[in-house]
């Protein structure tokens, strides 16, 4: 009786293990399907012409995605310029002040920001930056602009940067900071010359992750950057961006537009994947050096 029982239990155990293996690797199926399909559909559409031209009028073939490429790069760059300084400094603040009341609320707000749906960020950015408003003597002109899109994206980048900065700096030994302070270094120099460089891999990976996250975001740009059929580098005006273009063209019936969307999807996918791979490579490289 004992023998049979053990066999049954072992059988269940191996069966379970087999089940786990299958389920775990089954997740790769949709991922591979998506990657494979997009590569196959997009690779034929990409050529030099595709990369340097702007879209043609509706119904005409040819055209490219140059305005979306430039637009995306610019919007992301401006978003990073806004979010990185604020994010890193807020992260430094949180790691320096573990116990204070303000820090507690700040941490809570960072967690809240991380959970805000992207469409809600878009709504808020619309009301703050796109709608014209007057408060007393201040008159905000408003209008769709790349800057408002960047601001919305920056709001989404902040929690990731703050979190990773705080976590990285928390892991550093206090003795590092104390030694620098004991040598008489001013506090800001201690932070920027000693603490941050030691934790740079974690901070940088947080920054790269946040950039990778917003590269593919569309919802916040729907009511802010608006889209633009021309190539523009003026961030005070509407601008086209890659995910926005994919969304608009993917739901249309025109075969030319669908082709553009496939090519653009491939480029966006490769861009995001490269960012993620780059993040992994630099964190591993820097960690080894330390």
């Amino acid at each position, binding site marked *: 009786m004992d023998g049979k029982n053990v066999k049954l239990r072992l059988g269940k155990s191996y069966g379970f293990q087999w089940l786990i293996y299958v389920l775990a690797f089954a997740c790769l199926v949709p991922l591979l399907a998506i990657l494979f399909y997009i590569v196959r559909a997009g690779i034929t559409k990409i050529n030099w012409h595709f990369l340097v031209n702007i879209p*043609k*009028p*509706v*119904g005409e073939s040819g055209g490219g995605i140059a305005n979306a490429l430039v637009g995306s790069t610019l919007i992301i760059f*401006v978003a990073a*310029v806004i979010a990185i*300084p604020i994010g890193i400094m807020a992260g430094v603040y949180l790691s320096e002040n573990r116990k204070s009341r303000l820090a507690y609320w700040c941490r809570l707000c960072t967690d809240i920001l991380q959970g805000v749906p992207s469409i809600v960020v878009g709504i808020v950015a619309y009301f703050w930056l*796109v*709608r*014209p408003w007057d408060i007393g003597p201040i008159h905000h*002109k*408003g*209008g*769709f*602009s790349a*800057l408002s899109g960047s601001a919305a994206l920056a709001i989404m980048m902040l929690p990731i940067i703050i979190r990773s900065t705080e976590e990285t700096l928390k892991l550093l030994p206090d003795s590092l900071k104390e030694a620098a302070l004991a040598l008489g270094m001013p506090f800001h*120099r201690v932070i920027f010359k000693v603490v941050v460089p030691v934790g740079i891999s974690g901070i940088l990976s947080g920054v790269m992750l946040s950039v990778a996250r917003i590269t593919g975001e569309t919802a916040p740009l729907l009511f802010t950057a*608006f*889209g*633009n*059929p*021309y*190539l*523009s*580098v*003026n*961030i*005070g*005006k*509407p601008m086209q961006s890659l995910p926005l273009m994919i969304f*608009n063209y993917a*739901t*249309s*019936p*025109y*075969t030319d537009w669908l082709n553009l969307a496939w090519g653009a999807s491939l480029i966006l996918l490769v861009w995001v994947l490269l960012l993620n791979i780059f993040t992994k490579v630099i964190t591993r490289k820097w960690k080894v050096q330390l």
Partner: protein
Amino acid sequence: MKQNSFKFKRSLAAGAFFALFSFSLVSCGGGGGATGSDSTASAGSSSDNMLTGAGSSFDNPLFSKQFSEYDKTNNQKINYQSIGSGAGISQLTAKTVEFGASDAPMNGKQDSALSAPVVHVPITEGAVVLSYNLPDVKDTLNITPAVLADIFLGKITKWNDPKIAAANKGVKLPATGITIAHRSDGSGTSNIFTTYLAKVSDEWSTKVGKGSSVNWPVGLGGKGNEGVAGLIKQTPGAIGYIELAYAVQNNMAYAKVQNKAGNFITPSIASVTAAANITIPADTKVSLTNTEAADGYPISSFSWVIIYKEQKYGDRTLDRGTRLVKLLSWMIHDGQQYSSALTYAPLSPAAVSAGDAVLKSVTFDGKPILQ
């Protein structure tokens, strides 16, 4: 001394940061790239060269071509986003764009939300066609108004329903289920279509009504004419209403509709022109649906561009107002040459003179812009 090198590096970093910051401010406030000018961060005003408009997807194929040609000859770029007539009107009301385009003139509620009066300029005439996805049916289907209303009310659910067969003798209709495709966003095209249905079906008029955004009894929603056309193209057995240009550009089948006189009319430039042969009031707000004309297509409509009557608002300049009015004037005259190729009907002479009159009434600081 080490102290000095630190100071130097710090000031260098600070300088770089401020340079970057001010560069972004300047490019935000000042000239950049393709448009090359100095301006303030706003779409509704400023001396930046690009004009911004939004609205009707009905007009988008025509506008796309017209703006591209206009840029070649007049060096004027126009950023038009096809987000639906409803959105065009509300963005114009919020003054985030300079002109809106709508296939339905603004109604009383929308008018009351405005802070200043607007004018409607008729810009083209088009047809709302019923496009369907039945790959095995080679003949063009005939649809009567009663059948159309029943389909969209959800009462007729299969293509081989006797009511449909009655108007299509000799055509082998499949037993596929009918999937309706309608607009999910606020649409002038929906407005044209539902106004027509309300005129020809009492049941539709009471149950659903007419408007840019109604409570559709059945069906799937697509965003813009583009989205609905996409849905029809991908879903076998689907039927939906889209502008003629979309059906033609995408090689989609569309039906003949029986008009008030009892004739089954194919939507075309000729039948739309016939329907548009009526008197146009001074404010140009007129509906062409369910036309009396014997060979007119019953679901035709004008489409309008809407701008503020007084162009001096915000910090708009006379130059900007002039460029906007010049663009619209070009669109109703020279711009009409691009209509036929895209199966839009060129504006009737009556519509053009009505449009001219409206444009002459647009002022800057009280003085008419066009002399």
